[in-house]
């Protein structure tokens, strides 16, 4: 437990003279961004964000005040603000809650990693990034070669007046490479990333250089490739696009706060109705989707959510049937729908809401070659580049960086500007094959909530085959 615990205890005693329950969530996060573009250092930026969210329960209503003043007086002042605003709000509260929505648990968590980020030197990181952009060098048409590393270290401690004390420590890395090839009015970008709870082991020079060379070659290939054809066809999505497909068309619509209407003014509502749980055929029988914050190295692995609820793996969809929602204890109390431990905040200055964590499509039994072999006429797509979906999470349109046509069970020509569109439940019911080998991807930039919050999510998936999808290309 960090040195703040004594100050927190004093502040909690202060708060509990006025309210029956109080908590402090302390967060310290260091984020370092290093960017090399065209062999030149462009960004070397470290941000250290430290503060505390003081939380009270008053007349059945949870309310919050945030401060970066971590002295006893600072926390007490924040508690006074929280109490004033919560007192004003509680008469018009949306729901009456109780302290049982904040379990009194104790425990700790630490990210799995081979080498601490603390021991990974700047020179080593720069060497890896410089080597990557150098490896993309070649044709004059490769106009933009970029290597970006984001290193995040987070300490997250939660204390409640009921005795809960959790301490979680995270090391996270996002290593991203991109190569843009341009000629005339045409331009194509290919990228690669490795993202998750890792340490310094991510900065493996030779492996990174190999990926850099591959994406540079693929960007050049795209520049000379024909446009993606437009017609219904079978579609194989690789794990780095399945990530986005899962995120937008499974993760968000299953969030219980969306189903309960909290997000209707911003991110939107959901086509999923409360009575759909246990009944709705979301997809084909091959579809099994889990909420799994226990998987090592995924971006959103943790032991406790920001309300202190212990995090466990739960199945959201089994055999294509919707079973469980993405809702924390408050949403479970409001809706009566089974949920998960996903009460999460972006930082010390935001209140927790229902978020995704790691939402994974469970592996099937087919090799990638077997999936491709099932396709008479189709396309295989890699790596998301465009995403859009409606506010009920029905009508989506996604675009990818790179695709290859499939004819008679074999991969063929590269095509550029591949896109596809569909409607969520119809699309997932066209799932006709699930690969056996999954990969974990993720993003640090999932936006939601009012006030807005951006949060890290992980999505592991094998390649998947969908039948009869509307596929189209760019403007000729």
């Amino acid at each position, binding site marked *: 437990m960090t040195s703040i615990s004594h100050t927190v205890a004093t502040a909690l005693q202060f708060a509990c003279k006025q309210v029956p329950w109080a908590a402090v969530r302390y967060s310290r996060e260091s984020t370092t961004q290093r960017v090399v573009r065209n062999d030149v250092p462009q960004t070397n930026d470290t941000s250290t964000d430290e503060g505390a969210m003081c939380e009270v329960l008053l007349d059945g209503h949870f309310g919050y005040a*945030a401060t970066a003043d971590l002295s006893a007086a600072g926390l007490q002042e924040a508690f006074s603000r929280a109490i004033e605003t919560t007192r004003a709000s509680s008469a018009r509260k949306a729901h009456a809650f109780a302290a049982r929505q904040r379990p009194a648990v104790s425990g700790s968590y630490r990210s799995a990693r081979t080498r601490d980020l603390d021991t990974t030197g700047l020179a080593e990181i720069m060497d890896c990034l410089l080597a990557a952009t150098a490896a993309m060098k070649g044709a004059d048409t490769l106009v933009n070669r970029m290597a970006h590393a984001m290193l995040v270290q987070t300490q997250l401690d939660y204390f409640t007046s009921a005795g809960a004390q959790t301490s979680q420590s995270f090391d996270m890395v996002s290593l991203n490479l991109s190569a843009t090839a341009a000629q005339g009015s045409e331009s194509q970008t290919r990228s690669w990333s490795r993202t998750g709870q890792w340490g310094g082991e991510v900065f493996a020079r030779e492996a990174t250089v190999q990926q850099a060379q591959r994406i540079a070659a693929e960007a050049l290939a795209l520049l000379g490739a024909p446009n993606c054809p437009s017609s219904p066809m079978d579609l194989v999505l690789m794990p780095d696009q399945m990530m986005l497909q899962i995120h937008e068309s499974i993760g968000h619509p299953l969030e219980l706060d969306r189903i309960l209407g909290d997000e209707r003014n911003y991110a939107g509502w959901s086509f999923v109705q409360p009575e759909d749980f246990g009944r709705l055929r979301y997809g084909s029988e091959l579809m099994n989707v889990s909420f799994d914050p226990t998987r090592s190295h995924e971006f959103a692995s943790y032991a406790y959510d920001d309300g202190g609820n212990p995090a466990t793996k739960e199945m959201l969809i089994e055999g294509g049937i919707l079973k469980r929602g993405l809702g924390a204890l408050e949403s479970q109390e409001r809706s009566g729908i089974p949920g998960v431990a996903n009460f999460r905040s972006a930082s010390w200055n935001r209140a927790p809401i229902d978020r995704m964590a790691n939402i994974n499509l469970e592996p099937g039994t087919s090799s990638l070659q077997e999936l491709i072999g099932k396709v008479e006429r189709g396309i295989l797509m890699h790596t998301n580049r465009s995403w859009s979906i409606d506010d009920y999470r029905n009508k989506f349109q996604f675009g990818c960086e790179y695709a290859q046509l499939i004819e008679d069970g074999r991969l063929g020509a590269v095509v550029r500007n591949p896109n596809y569109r569909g409607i969520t439940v119809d699309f997932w019911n066209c799932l006709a094959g699930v690969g056996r080998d999954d990969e974990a991807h993720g993003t640090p930039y999932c936006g939601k909530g009012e*006030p807005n919050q951006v949060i890290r999510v992980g999505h592991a998936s094998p390649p998947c085959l969908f039948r009869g999808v509307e596929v189209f290309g760019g403007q000729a």
Partner: protein
Amino acid sequence: MSTQGFSQAVAAHFDQLCVLLFDNLHSGEDLSANLAAEETLFLRLNNNRVRQNTDVRQSMLALRYQGGGRTVDQTLTLSSHLVHDGAAVLAALARCRSEAAVLPPDPFQVAMDNHGRSHEEFVGQLLAPEPLLQAIVGPADGCDMVGFYAGGTVVRANRNSKGQSHWFASDNFFFDYSLYDGPKAVKGVYSAAVWNPADWAANLQRSKGALALLQRPVQNIRPGAYRTYLAPAAFSDLVGMMGWGALSGAAWKQGRSPFKKLAEKELRLSPLLSINENFGMGLAPRFNELGEVAPECLPLISEGALANLLVSSRSAKEYGLQANGASGGESPRALDVAPGTLGASEVLAALGTGLYLSNLHYLNWSDPVSARVTGMTRYACFWVEGGEMVGPINNLRWDESLYDALGSQLLALGSQAEISPETGTYGQRNPGGVRAPGALIEGFNFTL
């Protein structure tokens, strides 16, 4: 603490830290300090009841260090205690030096300069939580209103070791809300520096009126190309896509700009379209993170032709362009679309038969090379026949090139531009906004 008290306390603390930092610089070193501070009350409503209330006080100090041709940035949260924060900023300065000793030189470093001084303060009058809640929800009694209030003081400041100093502080609020009737909804925003009950009542009444129109029979519109009117909020979103790389000088040079064909005069947009970066609207500070002061009004698109891309000093140095006070991201901070001649009372007649869209949702480039954007319709969107609103539509996906929609297919712009205030609160409240009229467009493509 009063709003002015917060601003004054932040100013004094910022000054003390800057003096401490500049006094500790070595020969050949320079440092700039950017402050982003706020005290904000956030209220989140669902069904006209409070879902969450959060009161936030925060100050973030971003330091940029230059020494030996290297640049290092360090950002830290301030506690407001001088002893604590003084030690923290000096430690950050030491980290800058140690990193600069390892980094290779940056050939495109923009040396710090004194870009002058400025001071802007906009004082408002904000309500305390209890009367505020009564003021918001009282007139909406009986409505299924989902909304988000964010109000308080926002500060942006910049100083550097060359003597430059800028200050911007503003007390203001917005209440961004949706009125629902079953699955159908209307969007509204009320934004000001002083809560005026009559203004809020009028704003809410307009939304209630629009909600009543949604009671008409729902129209199932098949995908296809339709004559379409984008109301100001919808058109703001469409032109707002230009902030996603289209108007960036660096993006153009790096092959990433969807307006490459416009920049290279291969294509042009409609002569009806003129767009400025206009700080005269008072929505955002004119100084950027380097303290450079942008022109009060910079033409971006003039009668359909590209007038200027947004060019930061770094891009100017790297690509031999002319810098124009743009921020490092080279996105517009105060986009202003010039109005046209189509009067509000003439819109439905001019549309005739087609789609009236109040709002768009989830826009993204679908084919950057052809400046093609996809998105959804959202909120109060109607099928119109013979100049009469027939009924609301089920939401449609659209996919359309800006070269077409803002080119030969742009028929008219509204005579009255409206401000869509910035409501983004990722990490912090963001000043800014877009001013745009509505737009009448022929053959807008709907795909799903």
